[in-house]
């Protein structure tokens, strides 16, 4: 890894001392490299521009935390990488709400799998069953705890034990057959 040039270090200190003009040094020096890096991961030019801008803004915000003796470029690359991650997370493809799927589920609610699960659920206690059903419906642990009137940690334990019980029952059944 290259050691930072003296000018980089000096400029960093000056930016930390409030001389915002010196930030232009980093922008001019590293924009082409960051641009190339981001555009190699993305192909949409408008998004590339935005991500480069965001990376430099994030760098400016974090500049006071940066060690003067460490090179700037790896840090900038790391920021750009994080910006890319955030971009992908934001633009992740989501399954659109489709009424057909819902209707199909309403027509055939009892599949073999669900029947299996229900038969397994008879082995756990009523409170554990209720908690597991709520987990499958997408409730958070906190919401389940509120609904059951139990503490959050108690609910966690309840669900964990129920899961362990179900796993052991299923394993026993598999080894039996």
């Amino acid at each position, binding site marked *: 890894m290259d050691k930072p040039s003296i000018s980089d270090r000096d400029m960093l200190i000056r930016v930390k*001392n409030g001389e*915002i003009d010196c930030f232009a040094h980093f922008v001019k020096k590293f924009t082409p490299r960051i641009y190339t890096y981001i555009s190699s991961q993305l192909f949409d030019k408008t998004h590339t521009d935005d991500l480069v801008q965001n990376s430099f803004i994030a760098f400016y915000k974090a500049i006071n935390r940066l060690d003067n003796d460490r090179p700037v470029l790896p840090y900038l690359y790391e920021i750009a990488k994080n910006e890319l991650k955030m971009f992908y997370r934001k633009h992740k493809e989501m399954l659109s709400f489709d009424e057909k799927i819902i209707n199909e589920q309403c027509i055939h609610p009892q599949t073999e799998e669900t029947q299996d699960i229900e038969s397994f659920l008879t082995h756990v206690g009523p409170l554990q069953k209720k908690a597991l059903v709520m987990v499958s419906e997408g409730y958070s642990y906190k919401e389940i705890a509120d609904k059951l009137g139990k503490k959050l940690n108690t609910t966690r334990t309840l669900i964990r034990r129920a899961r362990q019980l179900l796993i052991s029952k299923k394993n026993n059944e598999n080894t039996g057959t």
Partner: protein
Amino acid sequence: MKTLEHKILKKVYVMETRNTLFSIASKLAIFLAAGFVTFLFIQIMIEIFTDEASLNIFPVFFEGSEVMRTHLTDILYILFSETPPEIFMIIGVGLCILLITIYVTVRNIKKMKNVIHDLIQYWEKTVLKKNQK
């Protein structure tokens, strides 16, 4: 690439202008509020002691340094014991906030000066450019 660099720098300057203005305004507001509250409660404390003339606190200050030195411990004791604790606490907290605000401002004064200088320069340049166009 040049336009991109300009865009980045503009964003940085806009962000820094906003942050600086907010920081100055918040520090000023805290300073004024703490100063006002402290001043108000010191006034109330002085009024309490002037009303209770039997305690003889303030005349001692006009008697000269010799008398003041001999009675200093007595005066401080009376001040501590006779002031209502709520007022004393409010004055203490107000003074603490004032001192912290002053300390923080003095510590960052050089940085703040540089930031304001650069911001003024940048905005002057951009305004001049716009006017020339």
